[in-house]
């Protein structure tokens, strides 16, 4: 039993921290709220760090690393609210790699940027694969039409993470029978969405009967891709919570009221400790999810859903605690706390939403209580 980072993983995490430490991501996140031109293009940073090839196997030009490593990078991106299109990238590369797609080398070098358009797998057999309709409701996933000589893709999906400016989309779609298929398209309309959190790129995609290439992946692999998105969102949140905790702790040490550092008051101290408690829990589940995908794939849906649920709640709590600890100043535009708050609020509602993840944990154990039998 060894449930700790390896030296290589520590190194990967440090390297990510260093690479991102050279960019003023927080300032950019703030400025971009008013001026889209202030958005920093961090793709070169990602390419230089080798992140596009992280999950791509070595023969195909990638690094052949594991899920756990991807989550560590996501965590570091979250810590500085870096606008790297990583959540859309990882599942796309994983699927392309499974299918040994010819574009892999160009993807690994960062020449072409793929993005995954996720669809929610059904919880029970009676349901179907769905996407966001843009109004908080579910809509059918895009459909692959095989009537002509070449397959074509039709349909749409709202609030797709990282979709704007992608070079190609790897779409979780369904065929005429409702079975999931993965379709690759490069002729899509992406309408960028003015986001509440400018450090996150989001867009609505529309496929108007466009030519598509089908990937040789199965239903389990598309299900896995959905949960990989959940795990990445969770890991990213872990990094953000850790950063928010650090800022809150410093302020509580430095700020005085009634003659005492405010961190000496139980109300402040206990709220900050609650952030720590939630952070530790979220990180434990990040580890669980990272380990499960590669070692216990049958548990990965549970692990990823639990990770997202706990990390999403932790981030919401940490953002609000950060504002509370800072008093009024924490709610002003110039402060970093609102950026964390915006990140928390938007991300909680993306990719099925945090409530869907929590619901899936409940469903999983109701249907199979043995999943939580003590080991």
């Amino acid at each position, binding site marked *: 039993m060894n449930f700790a980072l390896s030296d290589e993983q520590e190194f990967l995490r440090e390297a990510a921290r260093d690479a991102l430490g050279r960019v003023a991501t927080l300032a950019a996140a703030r400025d971009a*709220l*008013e001026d889209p031109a202030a958005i920093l293009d961090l793709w070169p940073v990602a390419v230089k760090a080798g992140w596009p090839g992280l999950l791509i196997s070595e023969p195909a030009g990638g690094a052949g690393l594991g899920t756990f490593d991807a989550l560590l990078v996501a965590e570091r991106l979250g810590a500085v609210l870096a606008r790297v299109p990583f959540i859309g990238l990882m599942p796309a590369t994983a699927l392309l790699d499974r299918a040994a797609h010819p574009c892999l080398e160009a993807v690994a070098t960062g020449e072409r940027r793929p993005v995954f358009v996720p669809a929610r797998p059904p919880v029970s057999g009676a349901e179907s694969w769905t996407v*966001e309709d*843009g*109004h*908080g*409701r579910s809509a059918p996933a895009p459909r692959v039409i095989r009537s002509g000589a070449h397959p074509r893709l039709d349909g749409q999906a709202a*609030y797709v993470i990282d979709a704007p400016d992608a070079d190609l989309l790897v779409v979780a779609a369904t065929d005429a029978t409702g079975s999931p298929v993965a379709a690759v398209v490069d002729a899509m309309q992406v309408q960028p*969405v*003015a*986001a*509440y959190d400018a450090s996150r790129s*989001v867009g609505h995609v529309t496929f108007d009967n466009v030519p598509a290439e089908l990937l040789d992946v199965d239903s389990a692999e598309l299900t896995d891709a959905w949960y990989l998105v959940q795990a990445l969102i969770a890991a990213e949140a872990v990094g953000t919570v850790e950063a928010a905790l650090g800022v809150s702790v410093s302020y509580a040490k430095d700020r*005085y*009221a*009634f*003659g*005492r*550092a405010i961190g*000496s*008051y139980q*109300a*402040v101290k206990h709220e900050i400790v609650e952030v720590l408690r939630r952070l530790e829990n979220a990180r434990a589940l990040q580890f669980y999810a990272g380990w499960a995908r590669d070692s216990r794939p049958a548990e990965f849906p549970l692990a990823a859903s639990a990770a997202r649920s706990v990390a999403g709640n932790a981030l919401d709590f940490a953002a*609000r605690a950060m*504002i*509370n600890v800072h*008093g*009024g*100043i*924490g*709610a*002003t*535009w*110039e402060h970093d706390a*609102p950026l964390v*708050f*915006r990140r928390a*609020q*938007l991300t*909680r*509602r*993306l990719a099925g*939403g945090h*409530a869907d993840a929590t619901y899936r944990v409940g469903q999983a154990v109701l249907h199979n209580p043995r999943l939580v039998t003590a080991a």
Partner: protein
Amino acid sequence: MDLDDTPDQAAWRTEVRQWLARHQSDAPPARGDFEDPAYVEVRRSWQRSLTEAGLVGVTWPEEHGGRGRGPVDQVIINQEMARAGVPGHLDVIGIGLMGPCIIAHGSDEQRARYLAPMLHGDEVWCQLFSEPAAGSDLAGVQTRAVEQADGSWRLTGQKVWTTSAQFAAFGMCLARTDPDAVKHQGLTMFIVPMDAPGITVRGLRQISGEAEFNEVFLDDVTVTDDMVVGGVRGGWKAALTVLMFERMMIGAGAETIGFRPDRVATALAAAGADDPRVCHRLGELTAELLAVRYGGFRSLTALSRGQIPGPEAGLAKITTVNALIAAADLVCDTLGPGALTDEEWGYMTSFLPGLKSAGGTEQILRTTIGERVLGLPAEPRVDKGVPFRELRTRQIAEVAA
């Protein structure tokens, strides 16, 4: 035990309603941009009309231009304004807090000079109390006022969380005149003309991006000695009066702080009424908001019997803010990410976290209520009895640690 108007209240309601029916068409929109001088101007002239109709400062004594009415009559005005969809008077701070402070602590000259223009909206007021290092700990203000040979005072410091500062004519400023006294005792209250040399006003943008508040910098601002309210070293007493009237404003029902629970329910009904989770969460927060409403009627009854509300009035604020946060959260969960960029829900989501500490953090409120209302023992106070000058905010705690 009833919520119906007494005959007198019913008559008053009719009077208000009839006036509004006649003048409603002259009213400006209820929401607007206070950074826009034109909007401020129409609101100012609307206040003037209201004052001429006797609908502003109705709880002020008649001798000071009010109508000597009870708090319920003010609530009736608020209700009728809301019903008609028109805004109330522009200078909420002046009419609700600064006027009463001048009435209580000001000199006859001050009352004669300031109250009438305040009522008419000719001179809007702002409150210069909080500072970056003195928010919840208000008595820790560091803005210095130094007496000059001619009896005038020079004020230097920084104030924050100031509403209306950008168009106010005067500010009521709490400043330290005696740093050798212990902290509550060395304070004095000053009237400061906001156009005095040395004053800089800067908008303070909130999470939403809007500048709800301002920072006000005072750099050697000179005020004459007739601007002292409540006597030199009487500042804390005057400040307490303002805080008490603040509680009365809450007690009289700032029920939903501008957000309407019926709109939340309507939005949810359109989107997710079939989900029991939505229904349960809506039920929980609605019950809390109803409690605030009917608790408000209890406070108002007490108020109308002359009872001064205690710090427990703050509980209503805690409940309201948290229930509205839950409401915004529920709407965004149900309507999805689009709600965050919707004008109403996005603004609500962004506005509320800041409101939690407005007027002192929730935690300070709970401490005050625990000690003053329930009689729980106070925390050890390391700053008690220490001259402010020695109270180098950092060092004292380090000694104590």
